[in-house]
């Protein structure tokens, strides 16, 4: 780990003033479960680390007229134990349960989950996020069993976020603050696929802090997350799917289907979701939706199995959403 200056501000304004306009100069520390590993491996070598865990206004979960406000430094454990979340947002609870390590749940934050860096092993071994060699990605001819089946350009890594897919399904927004003010983005716009080495996979700017997440009310919205895991341990899922269904009686009025770990951003299955409109979720309908969700997938040499996993994850998430 390279030596760095450490700051632990207690107000958002102070924290914002410590940031830089250049990526790589300053890193924001919340739970640290990803950042510390990145720093130990010299993947991140910030000159300054700004701890935001001491900023009270970034914490807490509150019910507001516009839905749920979740502070960026709310831990996975706080989220899991929160009754408001438990009541209306099973998709979030199920995603949180997929984070298996007790230490990760105690330390890791929801904001950190959205901002964490991808797990691509080329990236983590120092070959860069796009793993470019002579302008071409190593990944299509390399070891790609865990990589994207919905790549975007040269971006073959997969977004590691557990909460990105359910938050997008639920229509959530993130609030980003800088010294110049705040802005809001739908979560689906928070994730981006970089096309040049050095670009980030999120829309956050280096001088911004993700302060809170706003989740619309989900009364009457059937929602669920289904993860397909290689094992039961502290590990990354192979594929996930989150769904949110606004129901009219037992028929779907509108739907959102979002798949995780299949592309450099969470991937929305827009056509499959539209196809669900007016339908009752039966085993056959869920299965067909799964099939439609993976249409257009472009698997690599070793990850064709993820197409089937994504299809099954969508099916099972849909069935879980309407089960009871």
């Amino acid at each position, binding site marked *: 780990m390279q030596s760095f200056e450490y700051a632990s501000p207690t107000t958002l304004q102070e924290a914002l003033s410590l940031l830089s306009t250049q990526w790589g100069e300053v890193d924001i520390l919340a739970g640290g479960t990803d950042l510390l590993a990145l720093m130990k491996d010299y993947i991140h070598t910030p000159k300054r680390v700004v701890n935001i865990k001491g900023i009270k206004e970034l914490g807490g979960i509150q019910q507001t007229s516009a839905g749920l406000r979740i502070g960026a430094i709310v831990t996975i454990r706080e989220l899991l134990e929160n009754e408001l979340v438990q009541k209306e947002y099973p998709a979030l609870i199920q995603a949180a349960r997929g984070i298996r390590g007790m230490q990760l749940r105690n330390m890791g934050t929801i904001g950190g989950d959205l901002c964490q860096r991808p797990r691509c092993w080329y990236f983590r071994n120092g070959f860069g996020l796009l793993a470019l060699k002579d302008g071409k990605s190593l990944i299509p001819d390399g070891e790609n069993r865990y990589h994207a089946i919905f790549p975007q350009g040269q971006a073959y890594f997969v977004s590691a976020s557990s909460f990105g897919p359910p938050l997008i399904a639920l229509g959530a927004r993130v609030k980003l603050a800088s010294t110049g003010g705040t802005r809001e983005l739908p979560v689906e716009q928070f994730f981006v696929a970089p096309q040049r080495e050095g670009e980030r996979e999120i829309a956050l700017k280096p001088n911004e802090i993700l302060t809170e997440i706003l989740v619309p009310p989900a009364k009457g919205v059937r929602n669920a997350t289904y993860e397909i895991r290689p094992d039961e341990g502290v590990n990354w899922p192979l594929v996930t799917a989150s769904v949110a269904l606004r129901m009219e009686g037992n028929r779907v009025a509108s739907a959102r289907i979002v798949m995780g770990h299949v592309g450099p951003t969470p991937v929305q299955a827009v056509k499959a979701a539209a196809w669900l409109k007016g339908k009752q979720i039966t085993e056959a309908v869920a299965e067909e939706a799964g099939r439609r969700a993976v249409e257009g997938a472009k698997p690599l040499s070793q990850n064709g199995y993820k197409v089937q996993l994504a299809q*099954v994850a969508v099916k099972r998430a849909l069935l879980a959403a309407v089960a009871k």
Partner: protein
Amino acid sequence: MAEYRWPPVNQRRVIGRPVNRVDGLVKVTGRATYSSDVRRPGMLYAALLTCPYAHARVRSIDVSEAERSPGVRAVQVLAPAGTEINWAGADVAMVAAETEEQARDAVRKIKVDYEVLPHLVKEFDLSRAQAMNRAKPSGEAVTGDPDQALKEADVVFEGEYTIPVITHSCLQPHGQVVAWGEKEIEFFANTQAVSTVGADLAKALEVPAEIVHVQQHSVGGAYGSKFQAESWAAAAARLSKAAGGRPVWFHLDRRTELEVAGCRPSYRARIKIGAKKDGTITVWDSQSWATGGFTGGGLSANLLPFVFVKIPNKRFNHTAVSVNTAPARAWRAPNFPQVAFLTCAALEDLAAQMKMDPLELFLKNVQYTDRPEVYAWQLKKAAELIEWQKKWHPRGQGEKGPVKTGLGIGIGTWGGLGHAAQCRTRIHPDGTVEIELGSQDLGTGTRTVICQVAAESLGLRVGDIRLKIGDNRYPVAGASGGSTTVGGVSAATRRSTLNALDELFKRVAPSLGVSPDQLEAVDGRIRVKGDPSKSLSWKEACQKIGNSPIEAMGANDPKSPGGLISGGVGGVQMAEVRVDTETGQVRLNKLVIVQDCGMIINPKTAESQCYGAATMSICAALMEERIMDQLTGRFINAAYDFYRIASIMDVGEIVVHLDNRPEHDARGVIGLGEPPVVPTIAAISNAVANAIGVRVPEVPITPDRVLAALARRKA
């Protein structure tokens, strides 16, 4: 002359009891010290620079900036200009500084100019291996007439199976603290060879062996990877010398630990088996490939077929492939888990082709093993414990829904004869009993069983024994490898303690008015045989010793075991798995382990050995795999996010049945560290095939491979 034989079962008071580990409390409270916990006055910390290329030549190396870096006290170049490097992660230079952070910062300032050379890191890319002259046939071994037997066989099955390289994944990475002082080299080691690792370091440093003083309390796993002193210990010692004798702490980081400090050879085999209609195997013909890293991957003939060694017609053909990765190290039962998988998978596939119950096929062929009765009994016992009769179904004919269950068989063997070991017992006039051996406890329970043997022999309790191990100034004991420790230390301790007791009897006899041979030590007293009223407490008896303590040696010589120890065990495991055929996920429901190991000193630590061993092989069956990337030459998953090992949730229910029937007990002590690791992969792979109706030919059995196998069956 003492009678060293173990007491009859009904007279044992400490041996055979499930005694808690004597070092359990210090371990669970974090007070046990490992080499990485050692802190010495003036200690420096070292960091290692390794090569990022799988094959390269060092053109030049410049350490001047590192030498000027803050806190740096010494720098050692380990790969000078001109060195050819044959694997990524190989040593290049080491730096010692006041803090670990300073050492790591300094290492990054070393400038190395490499000439990058072509590499091969994938051993099953055979055409490339041949083109690069990296595939070396190690000859053919033929018994009988395999070609004729194949022609005459009623049934011939042919299959191909693959098992990858895995690493040792010791919880505690390799490393040590070493201080090169004026008179001696203090070596706080992390080893499975306390009595020999000092001489090993001395040789590397070209100093007399006697000046290296090895000390060790606990080790965080070794599994065969921690016998040598290692280049890192020698480099750290030289840094210590250069820094005026200040102790130097060095341990590998996790990535390097995975890359270079542990490697179990892979195997791929094409196997043909011929059999009669009744399932009797008549012929085995196999062609195999393996790598053990840069030094290749030899496999001695007669390991295939495994266990069923007396099949009358056999052909064995093996090719060792050299790849640009660090060399193999002995991994718990070297080669046996792999060949058990290859053999048992082929046998169950043959059974499936013949529409025969594999249990019946195994029973039919135990005649070809060295111990037919033992295997037949163990197969039946395991079948009973996993409810084979009730639960087994023909391959692929289980449940209707997407989740299928299945059963499978694995079979094993191992040696485990105790190594040469010496023990010194002192009985002090105050009644204290001190036992010394230059042995080590790798977490296996060695300390506990030594105390049990001593307590049994002296008529004392486990807590009365002051045991000292982990120092090369104690009597020489063998390295802990090959499951040789428990036999070695228990026999040596038995002899040493009884020799000391003989001497105590001589000193005490006059005051009890009997001859020494009329005395016995029972329940903390020295008493007259047949007349318990005439006795002295242990403490009273020891007061008769005089000023100098009694000291007696005892040795184990594996060539004359004297009925205390022997070698050679069987072992059968059966697994029940469930497989989600939509996702390819496999989960272990239950694993039954039936294992003989001679006389059992401590059933609790013996069972723990089985749990630990099986857990390692559950990882190998379902999760663990070193993934080499041919593009970059790197071990691309050398971190615990994608080098997957089991959590408690993945292990399932493990049922251990220690086969200690009287005929096994009568064989004396036999090592148990390795035997139970051998059959597990085979049992799990076979259970998956039984569940889903098709063989997943490669382990670990991951979702991608399960789905691919299912797709091939459909096609």
